[in-house]
């Protein structure tokens, strides 16, 4: 048990270590001292309460996009449409956040979050139906739906939902009461972090101890077998895709109410896609995903400030991020091969 956990941890850490090594080469070639840059990054990400709070803020959306992805992946569904759900969920929550004027926090926050989740789930109905009824590959449909979601929301905030007098493609700011409470003012860390963390932990419990969690894992391992022992595979796949969309939408809603306080075009710098890397690095396990989200959160938060204090360009951090993702996604190839083998 413990040995297996350690092996999992090592496997999850490997892409990160490889990425650091490659990043070190890039740094050395460009005339920087890798060790001092890494030390600076570490202290930027974790040196002190304020910096830790910033890292956790950056971790928050990744926890949920990772979770949304993992729920689909472990059932063998390669849903890559969490990004689109994130956009739609963010827009829905922000819109309700400024529409529902005068609502108390206790009402407006749950309603806006619920709306964000529901629209994310609804967004997955079409690809889920196509997959289970007609066998249409979900990778294609969900990827394409991302473009639609991004451009649809972008059009809405340039037209019907554009803030009066604003030149930016943004909605008006949400009501003060709709903002998620800050945990450590003046840092931007907000209640969304606690909600996200709790959901990932709840997922860990669901994974191990519930009938649905059991079935969905087994379907991911061998769908033909599950069909033969009487599990309703199409229905399960459908529900897992919707659940994935619900959480993706919720992730966007939390991001809107917790941090951005409105919806803007380009709302997500690819949180949905980083979520794929989080799920893969974390091997769909709750603990693994929390660690993986933390890694990406730390890279994002240190990257933002590192160029202020050194001559290291932010691109170096992006190279690191990209490299971790490549190594994490190298697993995706294996997973895909398994799946094709079954078909």
């Amino acid at each position, binding site marked *: 048990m413990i040995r297996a956990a350690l092996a999992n941890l090592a496997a999850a850490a490997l892409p990160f270590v490889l990425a650091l090594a490659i990043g070190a080469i890039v740094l050395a070639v460009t005339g920087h001292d890798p060790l001092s840059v890494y030390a600076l990054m570490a202290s930027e990400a974790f040196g002190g309460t304020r910096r830790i709070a910033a890292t956790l803020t950056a971790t928050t959306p990744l926890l949920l996009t990772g979770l949304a992805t993992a729920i689909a992946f472990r059932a063998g569904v390669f849903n890559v449409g969490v990004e689109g759900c994130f956009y739609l969920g963010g827009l829905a929550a922000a819109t309700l956040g400024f529409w529902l004027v005068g609502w108390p926090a206790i009402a407006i926050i749950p309603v806006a979050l619920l709306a964000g989740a529901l629209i994310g789930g609804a967004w997955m109905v079409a690809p889920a139906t196509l997959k289970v009824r007609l066998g249409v590959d979900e990778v294609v449909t969900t990827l394409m739906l991302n473009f639609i979601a991004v451009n649809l929301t972008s059009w809405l905030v340039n037209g019907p939902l554009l803030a009066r007098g604003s030149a930016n493609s943004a909605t008006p700011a949400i009501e003060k009461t709709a903002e998620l409470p800050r945990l450590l003012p003046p840092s931007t860390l907000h209640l969304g972090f606690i909600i996200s963390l709790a959901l990932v932990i709840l997922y860990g419990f669901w994974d191990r*101890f519930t*009938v649905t969690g*059991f079935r969905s894992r087994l379907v991911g*391992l061998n769908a*033909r*077998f599950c*069909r*033969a022992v*009487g599990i*309703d595979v199409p229905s399960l796949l459908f529900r897992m895709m919707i659940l994935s969309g619900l959480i993706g939408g919720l992730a966007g809603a939390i991001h809107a109410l917790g941090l951005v306080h409105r919806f803007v075009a380009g709302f997500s710098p690819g949180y949905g896609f980083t979520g794929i890397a989080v799920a893969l690095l974390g091997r769909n396990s709750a603990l693994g995903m929390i660690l993986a989200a933390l890694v990406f959160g730390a890279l994002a938060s240190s990257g933002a400030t590192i160029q202020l204090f050194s001559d290291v360009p932010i691109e170096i951090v992006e190279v690191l991020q990209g490299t971790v993702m490549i190594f994490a996604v190298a697993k995706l190839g294996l997973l895909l091969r398994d799946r094709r083998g079954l078909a």
Partner: protein
Amino acid sequence: MSAPASRTRIGARAIVRRFGPVIANDGIDFAAAPGTIHAIVGGNGAGKSTLMRILQGVDRPDDGSVILDDREVRLTAPADAFARGIGMVHQEFMLVDELTLLENLILAREPVHAGGVIDRRKALAEAERVAAMAGVTLDWQMRVADAPVHIRQILEILRLLYRGADVLILDEPTAVLAPTQVRELIGLMRRLKAEGRTILFISHKLDEVMNAADSITVIRRGRAITTVLPGETSKAKLSEMMVGEPVELPLVHPAAPHAGVPVLAIDTLVARDGRGLPRLGPITLNLYPGEIVGIAGVAGNGQDELAAAAAGLGEIDAGSIRMDGRDITRARTGSFRDLGIAYLSADRAGDGLCLSASIRDNFIAGSEHAPAFSKSGLLRLRAIHEGARRALDTLSVRYGAMGDPVKSLSGGNQQRVAIAREFERKPRILIAAQPTRGVDIAGIAFIHRQIVAFRDAGGAVLLISEELDEILSLSDRIVGLYGGRITGELDRSDASVERVGRLMLGEKAA
């Protein structure tokens, strides 16, 4: 080409290949002379596919070696085998539907002008050359998607010729062909042979093998049983060698003759295989409580489809399945199981077990929502553990820990886990398809005792097996299946190897 002819163009010397605890090839020898058609026959799971993979360089033997031109060689990759003139036509054609026959022929070996543009004129000339060599004419501009299946097959063979292969491995080439097309294909094989090419003909259709082959190697349970000439043997003898000698099992007592209402009634059922080809029926078969009905047949004659249909997994076109008089033809698999139909799949790695999941998970799979194992959607982990331990102990399963993956077990113990899972549901009907495939001798006897005990307790068993000894020693009634139809039925007391053999070959019971 003027070198002295070798005695063996392609062959195997004591090839052994293990997959974990399962031995797929257990010391296989054979030798095909140049310019001959050498047939390799055997049931499913006999080890043919593994041997072919090794001859093709896709897989490597643990022991023994491939023989080419009388010399032992190590094939390291498919390209290596190809460079030595070995090519294979798979059961599933490897063609691009959207391209024409000509484009498929030259794919990956295109004749080109300088600059990389395909030289279509040269391609067509080459195509005509190989077609003339094989004595066929094709419409080269036809798209593969529009070509009938036998044309696709011929194209696959021509492609090997185009690429210069002189050893052609044909894996069940007649499975998808109509009788006239089979004759055409055999004619083509003979012409290729006359040119000095060597053909390995993998099949379990004994008529065709007897008709086409110069020599025949029989493979059973991973061993080459014998190599014979068609003139020295008969279909009956071959089928006997493929399925083995019956052994006496003292444990089995014939049950009381059945009477009353069948527990499972299959009526004029017609079903398709996974590829949508009609394979079964129409067949009518009744199963009564307290009896074992053995389905005897050579692989590919509808057994898989019969088992799938009876287990609630079939692609059913027509007819009905009734349990206790109730129509369940269109019911979901879960309903079949909830009504008391248990299934031991022949494809243990596919849908019989989830090999990468734990023993525990395999044990409760499909029953995880039962009150014994969960409450309000939460798994009762302790109850599951206890239940699994009790059931596995009852069946003397040898395992390390309950959390170990099933693939860490031997074939026999894997099957016991499947039996434990199915029996835990207290079924009334057991569909047992190839229940002892890949199981060692001791395990076979144990599994047989379990099946008989189930029968003695009033259960009904549909036993589907390619092992004639298994059918003969367990069945109360034996039904022959050939070409998807029932050829006849024998009572246990009338059954003999010869009579069952005739049923398997499509001859009516005498």
